[in-house]
């Protein structure tokens, strides 16, 4: 089974092991130690860590398309938010008549807007299974339609980045409108419970945290399985030489579409797990700034590694928590500087600094030092020697 293939990889085992130990540790420290103990992990921290894990899953989704397919999506926040809204709609319907206005069917904001019936697209969200399907379907469908149009017309590179940004911007404007029926400016909030569990209890929070951890592990395995398959190598081929891949007989646009849709669905799942933990979903998740922030997590962690995305997401968001706590003004400076420093000085990200877990792949580094002298061709026929004579630094000149 292709999906289980990554389980035999050392790097995946290591990643899953560390994730498992971390989750176990948090659980034990939260449950076993009494409150007030120095090592006790509070419910607040558990939820915070859960949030980081959601971001990590989102970053893995972005890394899948950016790192392996060369598609820099500046609109992944849209897929995340759509998943989040699907979950938010389920949670809204779960409130039932416990809202401020006590309407058994309509969410508070609809009562406030004097709506007398539930819009058709809110039907079915009272059922958890339906919501789960929509969490995958809504972002997946958007990615399918958008990707189909874009990839068919061979819109890639910077153009694609810009129109993905426009996409999420347009969605943000749309969701800000009250008429859309998604709560407008305020979004969806005041959730009470999920699957019958009260969202305010510590146990539910821990459960959500663990569920997010499992989702991250599954998401990681799915991505790893794609990347390690022949399709993954085709993706890299599309990334590096799209035309060549086409002349080999691969339908580049379908490869791109498949990976893009998978990535969007993973982002949707991340959004769906995020909403019950932070208790709100509003149009700001669609903001272009958020989407581009995700990209910098991946860039910091090191792209085309998957685990790098996880490291980047957790680190940046931890830094954000710390910074906004002590000096909120400095955060945007720090974030801005991070963008610049990572791209200029750390093109391979943190993962590039770690001891390699895999077979070294020189070509993974898209940012080799500048062009050297033209090596021309090697007069010596021995291929091994010829290869040794070619330092990686020189290879760009022949591209």
């Amino acid at each position, binding site marked *: 089974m292709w999906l289980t293939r990554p389980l035999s990889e050392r790097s995946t085992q290591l990643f899953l092991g560390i994730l498992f130990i971390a989750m176990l540790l948090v659980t034990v420290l939260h449950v076993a130690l009494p409150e007030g103990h120095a090592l006790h992990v509070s419910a607040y921290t558990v939820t915070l860590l859960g949030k980081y894990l959601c971001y990590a899953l989102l970053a893995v989704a972005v890394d899948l398309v950016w790192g392996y397919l060369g598609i*820099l999506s500046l609109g992944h926040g849209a897929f995340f938010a759509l998943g989040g809204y699907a979950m938010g709609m389920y949670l809204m319907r779960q409130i039932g008549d416990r809202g401020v206005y006590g309407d058994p069917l309509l969410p508070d904001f609809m009562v406030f807007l004097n709506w007398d019936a539930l819009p058709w697209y809110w039907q079915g969200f009272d059922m958890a299974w339906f919501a789960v399907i929509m969490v995958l379907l809504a972002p997946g469908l958007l990615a399918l339609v958008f990707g189909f149009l874009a990839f068919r017309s061979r819109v890639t590179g910077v153009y694609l980045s810009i129109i993905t940004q426009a996409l999420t911007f347009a969605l943000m404007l749309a969701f800000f409108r009250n008429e859309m029926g998604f709560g407008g400016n305020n979004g969806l909030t005041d959730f009470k419970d999920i699957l019958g569990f009260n969202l305010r209890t510590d146990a539910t929070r821990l459960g959500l945290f663990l569920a997010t951890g499992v989702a991250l592990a599954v998401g990681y395995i799915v991505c790893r399985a794609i990347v390690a398959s022949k399709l993954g190598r085709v993706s890299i081929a599309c990334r590096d030489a799209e035309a060549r891949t086409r002349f080999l007989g691969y339908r580049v646009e379908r490869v791109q579409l498949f990976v893009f849709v998978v990535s969007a669905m993973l982002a949707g799942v991340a959004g769906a797990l995020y909403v019950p933990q932070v208790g709100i979903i509003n149009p700001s998740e669609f903001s272009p700034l958020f989407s*581009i922030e995700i990209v910098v997590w991946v860039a910091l962690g090191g792209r085309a590694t998957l685990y790098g995305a996880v490291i980047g997401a957790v680190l940046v968001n931890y830094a954000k928590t710390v910074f906004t706590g002590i000096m909120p003004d400095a955060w945007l*400076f720090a*974030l*801005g500087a991070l*963008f610049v420093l990572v*791209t200029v000085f750390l093109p391979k990200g943190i993962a590039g600094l770690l001891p390699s877990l895999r077979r070294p792949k020189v070509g993974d580094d898209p*940012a080799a030092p500048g062009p050297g002298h033209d090596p021309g061709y090697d007069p010596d026929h021995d291929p091994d020697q010829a290869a040794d004579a070619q330092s990686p630094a020189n290879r760009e000149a022949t591209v």
Partner: protein
Amino acid sequence: MSILRSLTQLFVVCCLSLPLLAHAQDTREEGPALLQALAEASSADKGDVISRIAKSGDERARDWLAAFADGKLSRIEDSGQFVIVLENRGRNWTVADALTGEPMGEVSRRELDTIRINNALRRELDSILSVIDLTVNNAERRLEAARALRGRVDAALSKRLAELLPDESDDRVRTVLQDALAIYRLEQGDITAVAPLSGSLNSEVRAALTSAARSDDPKLVAAANDALASIEQKLKFNRAAETLYFGLSLGSVLVLAAIGLAITFGVMGVINMAHGELIMLGAYTTWGMQQLLPGQPGLALVLSIPAGFLVSALAGVAIERSVIQFLKGRPLETLLATFGVSLILQQLVRTVISPLNRTVITPEWMSGSVMINEALSLTLNRLYVLGFALVVFAGLMLIMRKTRLGLEVRAVTQNRAMARSMGIKATRVDIMTFALGSGVAGLAGVALSQLTNVGPNLGQNYIIDSFMVVVFGGVGSLWGTLVAGLSLGTINQLLEPWAGAVLAKIVVLVFIILFIQKRPRGLFPQKGRAAEG
């Protein structure tokens, strides 16, 4: 009747000769006596005195009568001095000497004896004032007076106007006076008055026609309805013209914002996400200039044009040297790094200046509007920005087409290695190009400061739109940017009435997204084999 005749004579004399001024000087002493007479005359006699004042030819007569009509002509009880009340709120009123016009500060209202006026007199005065205004030397003031008369003409006034009309030298005033008379005749049920009125866009004319359309005379009703229909047609056209103007205005803003990007992105291939912040810097330069030159907003604005260019160009060069040059050939990384720069610049402005919006003053010569006709007036600041955008565009075209720099830029764009081997310093060209594109962003900021609030988010609001314009127009094509900017602005304005501002924007964005998928290279694609990635 005698009043009118003398006034007409007065007007003719007024227009013709200086001696009249001398005459006015001579009669200056008459002033106090006339006011005295006005104050002391009985209600019945006041009409007579008014006509004497109007006849006197005193240049202050209008002010006196206007103040009298408003109930602001007073006499200080103790001194008997005549004053005009400037401000009549509170216990103490601000007054000025009626004879000299000197401000006299505040006087307790108990000390003031207002010269009484009744409604009959007021009506008479209104006409007299209008007629006086119609006889002044200044054509603009006559026009204003004539406009005010429409729909207010009664039998007496109509006769006076008919007498004034042949002597009127200004065509605009004459047309308006004719309209005013026609409205009066229409009110009397005169069907021949309809023809001259059809086609006028004035609301009084429309009101008169509408009421005529409800009259009992079927012929008049039909004629009035026809006239109204033709007016409605004209109005529709004017509304379209207005939408087009707003569209072009919005478009010119988009062009200004995007044209710098068309150079850095289109020509150099550098994605500068901090472009919006360079616009913002230009706007803040204008604000700073006005702080440096308080009281001279116009001069400050003019000086801001070179200053804004310079500030943004320098900032652009700093960005190019510190970040972009290290990321050559890696467009996606450039995008990210410059986005970081944009965050830093925004936060810098928030921290150093203020997170709040700053107000940039619009100089007098840019405020107000140009009236094309009664239904269509164009705001001056938008007109200036439109013109400015076109000038900037033409300038850029000239630089790219006719100068050495333009030639070198095009050479480096097409084949960097070849250009280098021909002795072109590619690095220098990069810096110059980037400075040019960034400087133009600064110019956009200067222009924008006249239309919107200047705040830290100013640039952010334009960056996505700017990229859309460049991509829609075809990367690398300045013409494309111009056409795309103007057409997107117009489309947006056309959609707004039925979709609302936000939805219109969404529709435009979705339209562009779909358009790019249909024509990935935009409206004006770069052609040839070299364009193939």
